[in-house]
């Protein structure tokens, strides 16, 4: 159970940090429909985080909030792509297209997990991330084929996120430890490519020719953006340790 929990923790941290980023768009989106849409996506993603962290915490007698609010940066296990700042709307959409394709591939595979809780979480999540992928795809079309400015920003958005793509498929010791329960990250590259590349192709965006970062989020190595994110997320809970809200 401890090994499965460690695996669930990594997945939960990915979703939690992304939800925190997406939450910043609410009340600041380019149009009301997007306040609603990004709010929905943030809420779904936070829901995945809560299920996964609650499950992980159950192995260690900890709540989702113990894990979300009372761990320090090196104890987080999120991959670095989820830490990327929102940037402009095109940056956010580029990140969303990538991570939604990844989540779709992941949760589809995870529905076959030998761990029934993970399988059940994945079964619920897979429908939601499918919608997230549609949303990001539609906006990629609009932005890449809209105006000169929107295309320029879209190219910049994909250039900015692409160095963090490879890490999604890098080894995860927690996954290796529970091969029947977990999905091996390397195996997700193919379905990910199959979901994502046709979208780029359709709008004639070349795959960015940028070098990948070293990564290491699953080992606690985080881009410098995570510290300030956690400072804000955890400030109130830590001011009142032990309090119930």
């Amino acid at each position, binding site marked *: 159970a401890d090994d499965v929990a460690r695996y669930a923790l990594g997945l939960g941290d990915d979703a939690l940090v992304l939800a925190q980023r997406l939450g910043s768009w*609410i009340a600041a989106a380019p149009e009301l429909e997007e306040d609603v849409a990004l709010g929905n996506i943030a809420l779904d993603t936070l829901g995945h985080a*809560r299920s996964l962290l609650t499950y992980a915490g159950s192995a260690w007698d900890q709540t989702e909030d113990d894990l979300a609010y009372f761990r320090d940066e090196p104890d987080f296990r999120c991959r670095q792509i989820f830490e990327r700042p929102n940037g402009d709307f095109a940056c956010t959409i580029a990140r969303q297209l990538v991570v939604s394709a990844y989540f779709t591939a992941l949760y589809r595979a995870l529905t076959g997990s030998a761990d029934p809780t993970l399988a059940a979480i994945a079964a619920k999540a897979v429908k939601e991330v499918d919608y997230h992928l549609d949303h990001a795809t539609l906006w990629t079309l609009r932005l890449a084929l809209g105006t000169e400015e929107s295309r320029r920003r879209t190219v910049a958005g994909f250039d900015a996120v692409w160095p963090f793509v490879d890490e999604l498929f890098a080894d995860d010791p927690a996954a290796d430890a529970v091969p029947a329960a977990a999905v091996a990250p390397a195996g997700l590259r193919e379905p990910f490519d199959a979901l994502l590349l046709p979208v780029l192709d359709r709008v004639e965006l070349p795959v960015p020719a940028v070098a990948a970062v070293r990564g290491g989020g699953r080992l606690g190595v985080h881009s410098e953006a995570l510290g300030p994110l956690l400072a804000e997320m955890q400030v109130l809970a830590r001011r009142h340790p032990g309090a119930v*809200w």
Partner: protein
Amino acid sequence: DERLAAFDALIAADQRIEPTDWMPPAYRKALVRQMSQHAHSEIIGMQPEGNWITRAPSLKRKAILMAKVQDEAGHGLYLYSAAETLGTTRDEMLDALHSGKAKYSSIFNYLAPSWADMGSIGWLVDGAAIANQVPLCRASYGPYGRAMVRICKEESFHQRQGFEILLALMNGTDEQRAMAQESVNRWYAPALMMFGPPDGESPNSRQSMAWKIKRFSNDELRQRFVDMIVPQAEILGVTFPDPDLRWNEERGHHDFGELDWDEFHAVLRGNGQANALRLAKRNAAHAEGAWVREAARAYAERTATSERIAS
């Protein structure tokens, strides 16, 4: 005028006016003003709570808050759509908001510096909004009444969540209790002022009531609200900062102290705590999103064109 007589007859019979029906220009104008103000209030009202999403102290509260703020965006959308049936576009209404010409509820020009404000806003501000809005579900203009039915359902949900936030704080540590009381102290009077000036000084109210847009006077609604929240405050264990607040056996209502209407008018004039913040943030989101909306428009046109060519 025959059309006016038909309109008056519909109103008298408590029937609904629909977009295709004839209506007096003043009725249309009053409705556009009220509905767009209401929509703007939803949109601006996202800000004080939106500012706490990143810092919500538990994941459950974060999820509830996200959902609530997102609901408010949804309410804004319904209301703009309903108002558009009167012939004014959303862009026109938003331009009026962004330029400072249109009003929104003054309550959102107060600051929300404390987590407990998420409770007070839900309990008191949404509570007052509901007291205002429930009668609007029977508003004579059909699309408005129907939008309000949907909105009121969600608002009472929000009010309950606000109450729960305060209840959790009042059941918590001394610091949490102090946080809740301090917040209620700040929101009590502004919430009461949400019903508008006293009946004698409310110029638009009488006509609105005659048209059955509005069903109760400002002071009636305010009294109803005070009577509702006093027992709730007792359950919570918070007090209200009003030494004159007491049950009046004779009236069968609570008496309460005079409100500071100078303060109300100052906020209305733009000199509240947050007027400048709210409008600046709204305008920034709109301005920064201009290229996105432009791209979506260009893409839609391009797609429409290629579909026309293909067909």
